[in-house]
């Protein structure tokens, strides 16, 4: 194995009660990749991110960051949650939110000081939000909120970033700015894994893509993996719907279950 993998997920299975949400997921993300995770609603994309980050407990499987278990590598990982997961009426300023990115490094009880403040201001500079530093977050537009979250993640100074639908509901300018930022990160050798909702822009924004629908349908470089066939497998004609509506035997469907086209580079 001469290529370094920033993220390795093996046999990850995650269930809510008795309903499986993620089945036997394998993922190997080389360092310095910009990867999109796509799939229909309910496919488990957010669950995957949350399980990787330790927010949810998997039924089986393991997660490695740069070859070591996630718990030991938290400082190497940055996170941008979904914008809607937070109450933006909370009384706090943009700068304050961004400084939260340093809390992990501060650890328990230590207070953020001048150094943290400066790092936060730098982060805001990178996303073009410097003049909003002292703005109350309820007064931000969607795009500005997203940038604030991004700045917070940048300030974590990580090597691997996980982002959950960062392009959802932002204006065109912000979208371009985010893409530029992602490309900068890749340039700097960082790895970025993004849950993405817009299939149209996958080839343009990302190098790698993972198609997910409870199972991993395919994963690899966009050129090789982002095919009609794989998309159909992931999105169109969900297997169970087809089976029921056509009254077909599951065995028949199973028999017609082709192996997805995957990148040869996937090997270990």
């Amino acid at each position, binding site marked *: 194995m001469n290529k370094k993998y920033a993220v390795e997920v093996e046999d990850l299975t995650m*269930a809510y009660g008795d309903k499986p949400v993620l089945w036997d997921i394998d993922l190997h993300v080389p360092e310095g990749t910009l990867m999109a995770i796509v799939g229909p609603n309910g496919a488990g994309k957010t669950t995957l991110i949350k399980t990787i980050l330790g927010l949810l407990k998997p039924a089986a499987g393991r997660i490695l960051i740069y070859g070591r278990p996630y718990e030991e590598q938290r400082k190497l990982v940055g996170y941008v949650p979904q914008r809607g997961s937070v109450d933006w009426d909370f009384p706090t300023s943009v700068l304050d939110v961004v400084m939260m990115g340093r809390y992990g490094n501060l650890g328990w009880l230590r207070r953020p000081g001048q150094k943290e403040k400066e790092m936060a201001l730098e982060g805001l500079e990178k996303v073009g939000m410097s003049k909003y530093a002292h703005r109350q977050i309820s007064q931000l537009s969607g795009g500005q909120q997203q940038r604030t979250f991004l700045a917070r993640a940048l300030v974590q100074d990580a090597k691997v970033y996980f982002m959950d639908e960062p392009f959802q509901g932002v204006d065109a300018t912000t979208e371009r700015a985010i893409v530029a930022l992602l490309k900068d990160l890749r340039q700097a050798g960082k790895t970025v894994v993004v849950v993405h909702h817009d299939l149209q822009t996958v080839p343009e924004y990302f190098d790698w893509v993972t198609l997910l629908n409870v199972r991993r349908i395919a994963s690899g470089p966009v050129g090789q993996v982002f095919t009609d066939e794989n998309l159909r497998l992931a999105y169109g004609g969900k297997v169970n719907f087809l089976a029921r509506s056509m009254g077909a035997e599951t065995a028949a469907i199973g028999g017609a279950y082709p192996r997805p086209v995957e990148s040869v580079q996937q090997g270990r």
Partner: protein
Amino acid sequence: MTTSQIEIQLIAAVVAVACALPGVFLVLRQMAMMSDAISHTVLLGIVVTFFLVGSMESPLLIFGAAAMGLVTVSLVELLNKTGLVKQDAAIGLIFPALFSLAVILISRFAGGVHLDADAVLLGELAFAPFDRLDILGLSIPKSLAVMSGILMLNILFITLFFKELKLATFDAGLAAAFGLSPALIHYALMGLVSITAVGAFDAVGSILVVALMIAPAAAAYLLTDNLSKMLGLAALLGIISAVGGYWLARLMDANIAGSMATMAGLVFLMAFLFSPKRGLVAYARRRGRQKWEFAQTSLAMHLMNHEDTPAAVDECTVAHLQNHLRWQPEFADQVLLKAQRRGYVQRENGSLELTDSGRTLARQALVR
């Protein structure tokens, strides 16, 4: 049993059913705490009506109190709409203020009257048989008469508007599209809750109205998915709580209303633990059984995923199961054994192979 005792149980049962019916909708609409708020603010309604009417015996008191219930709901909505506070905070702001106002008005201006704040809160069922009414030559306790009337009203309303209530509760948007005003239904329901609370406080006090409205309905919610059944079950469980509570109180020589609430809590606890489909015990048992099935299916899926790939050599071994699937050795062995016994998996010198039936099992998992 003496007549008094029978009457008390009867009143308790009637109160319980009258509370359980609107309670079902409160639980389903996630407005449970509104019952807490209303049952406190009715005191202000009573006080204000008393000042207007001058007598504690007037039937207008019920309407005044019910009106205050509606006022409470409107104020909460109003406050919520300003966007300055969220709904839970709105409730927590308004009802203590109104209640405090009532308490102060009482102690300041109504000192001599038989209107005690804690009477409202606590009620006293034991005295109910002594306050009697003459109806058609029959002497019945006043609370029984009043509560029965309220019960009739609740039953009438729910029966007449069953479809509308059902629709508005589960799909407000659709209801509006049909021309039903969800707001109207909301206020009508809250009006019922207010009237019921007022009638009931005489017997059980306001805090325990909450118990009788919410606990039996919540228990019923754990036992059925059908709205009509839920209403019936809630009523039944309410009666059990009421009568059971009465006997518990007699046993312990304790306050009847408190015992009824305790009993309602126990009923809920039973449902929470032992509901055949949704109870904790049933769930644990299902999980135990499912753990094995799940694991076997996982194994089959895992093998199917990796067979015929270059990595099969590594992935389809026994050692891999323990390592990468995070299964304890004993667990992995057990799963493997069961899978082999069921014919899903074959073992060939340390490497595992999926059989045809195993493959079917894996594919069926996709078909959920």
